[in-house]
């Protein structure tokens, strides 16, 4: 009988219910749109940030020794340490491994570059360009067994004249920074030579290595002054086989601080430490935080407006139905039955408004995504329960005052026939 009353009451007051549902739809649609945009844009903006390079630098721990006599300090010396190349795959086995977008190892050495026009001491950087590495079990048996990564993956924004080094075993090609190209007067396709003399362990007496320029890098950063070769080339020239100076890691840290990545990497490779590139991380989190705050405020305002809309409609409904409520009470309805009737109506309004609002919100999110962020927004079904909860909550909250009014209806007054 309760549902019969509820259903027929709904049918009888279609226009009033429609107004209340529309109020909820507006609130739910804005909440859906902003929540979807917020979640999606956060992720996409994070990806965008990641395009601007690594946000985590992995370096070996180094011991610092103080040098001098008692009372006379000469300063400190630091023992040169390396990361083993054989450990690099472990970065892709941390708990947040799916959030590791890429990494690139680096081995640096100052060498002498010789071209027909000039000779210059320049930093040679050995790295992976786009290398497929094995992710070994048992650390991550559920993961893909291979992972392709390198500077191309973590720095897709680099402007390249020419092309990337595509063969990970290519020992004769290099990419040079724009400044190097200018100093040595080199263009794509030119060949030049480099030499390296190890002053401490004379393993090499200045053997000349010929390299062909396949690409010129323009970043307006320090990369413009470096020569990039496959890691094995740098290791060969310097005699540091299997050794690295640093690993640059690009981690998507939307839901977790980048420090978490660092800690996990340190646990897996105990002789390294992870240093977050704080400036970038903080700028990113700051911008994302502001976007979230703004969207949260707009959502709250929209939900308040929605609640006011529902409340106004429900109060009008209670006023219109005073005789009906009085009659129900006169034939024996206790207040809890009246409360149940109105709260059930509010719940149904919340459910219908929530579902329709969610659908409208998805369309709205696309509009916001494309017009404001120039991004296509992915619909998220997982926020539907949240939106339903919010919609029902708003409808119920908005019904408190009308319901109080309903239970205060005095049948003796509203049913007076005179």
């Amino acid at each position, binding site marked *: 009988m309760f549902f019969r009353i509820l259903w027929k009451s709904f049918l009888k007051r279609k226009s009033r219910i429609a107004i209340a549902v529309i109020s909820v739809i507006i609130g739910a649609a804005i909440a859906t749109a902003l929540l979807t945009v917020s979640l999606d844009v956060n992720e996409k903006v994070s990806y965008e940030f990641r395009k601007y390079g690594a946000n985590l630098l992995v370096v070996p721990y180094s011991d610092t020794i103080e040098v001098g006599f008692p009372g006379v300090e000469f300063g400190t010396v630091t023992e040169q340490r390396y990361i083993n190349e054989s450990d690099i795959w472990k970065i892709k086995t941390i708990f947040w491994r799916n959030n590791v977008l890429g990494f690139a190892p680096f081995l640096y050495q100052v060498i002498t570059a010789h071209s027909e026009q000039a000779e210059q001491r320049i930093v040679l950087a050995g790295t992976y360009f786009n290398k497929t590495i094995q992710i070994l079990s048992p650390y991550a048996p559920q993961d893909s067994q291979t992972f392709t990564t390198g500077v191309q993956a973590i720095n897709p924004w680099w402007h390249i004249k020419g092309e990337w080094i595509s063969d990970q075993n290519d020992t004769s090609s290099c990419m040079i920074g724009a400044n190097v190209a200018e100093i040595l007067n080199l263009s794509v396709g030119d060949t030049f030579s480099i030499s390296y003399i190890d002053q401490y362990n004379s393993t090499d007496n200045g053997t000349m290595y010929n390299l062909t320029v396949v690409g010129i890098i323009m970043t307006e950063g320090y990369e413009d002054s470096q020569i990039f070769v496959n890691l094995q080339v740098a290791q060969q020239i310097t005699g540091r086989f299997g050794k690295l100076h640093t690993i640059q890691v690009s981690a998507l840290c939307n839901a977790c601080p980048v420090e978490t990545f660092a800690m996990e990497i340190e646990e897996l490779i105990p002789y390294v430490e992870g240093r977050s590139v704080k400036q970038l991380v903080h700028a990113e989190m700051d911008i994302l935080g502001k976007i979230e705050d703004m969207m949260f405020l707009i959502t709250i305002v929209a939900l308040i407006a929605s609640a006011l809309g529902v409340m106004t409609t429900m109060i009008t409904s209670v006023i219109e139905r005073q*005789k009906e409520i009085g009659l129900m009470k006169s034939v024996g309805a206790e207040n809890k039955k009246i409360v149940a009737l109105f709260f059930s109506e509010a719940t149904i309004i919340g459910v219908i408004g929530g579902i329709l609002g969610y659908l409208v919100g998805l369309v709205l999110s696309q509009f916001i995504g494309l017009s404001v962020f120039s991004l296509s927004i992915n619909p998220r079904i997982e926020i539907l329960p949240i939106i339903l909860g919010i919609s029902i909550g708003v409808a119920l909250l908005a019904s408190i005052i009308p319901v109080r009014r309903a239970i205060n209806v005095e049948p003796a007054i509203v049913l007076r026939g005179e």
Partner: protein
Amino acid sequence: MDTEIIKLNKIAKIYDENTHVLENLDLVIRLGEWTSVMGPSGSGKTTLLNIIGCLDSTTKGSVIINGKEITTLNQVQLTRFRRENIGLIFQQYHLIPYLTALENVLLAQYYHGSVDEIKAKNVLNRVGMGHRLDHIPAHLSGGEQQRVCIARALINDPKILLADEPTGNLDQKNGDLVLTLIKELHQEGHTIIVITHNPEIAKLGQRIITLIDGKICADSSCMEN
């Protein structure tokens, strides 16, 4: 000896210091009695009926219905007491506009406890509305609506039926039909209180009480005694 079913002892209803709707009113109504209440507008007839019907409270005095002092009951207890003991018949019927005749009767049953559709149909048959079960009030005549209202009042088998101008909005023919029904209910043993302005209807009762300014100025039972 007749059983007292309603006993009002010096009841008063005062809305503010200057509005005394009922004053020191004593009234005893016996089981199965048909009492007609007359009086000019504003004399306190409806207030008296509302107090007996547990829809309104007294400012002072005691009200004992079916052996229970109701002035001490809270709102929930009053509601329960009303639905178990009292049937209300309104001048304006007060049917829920979006429910059918049958559903309007079932509504009272639902608030009383369980819904028994067969019983509801029987009661509607009894008041001559068996052929209009699925009609909403807007599709029923005034007389038909009043008969549905009576069916609703009867559905929970109350001992007391309170009717406020039950024929006030009806034509002669429909009014007679409703009064015939009330007579039958009285003959079946229901205690009936009818408010009316019509002396002919009042005479159908065993007893006529006349209220003026919140006081009983005439009681036919007293005159007989």
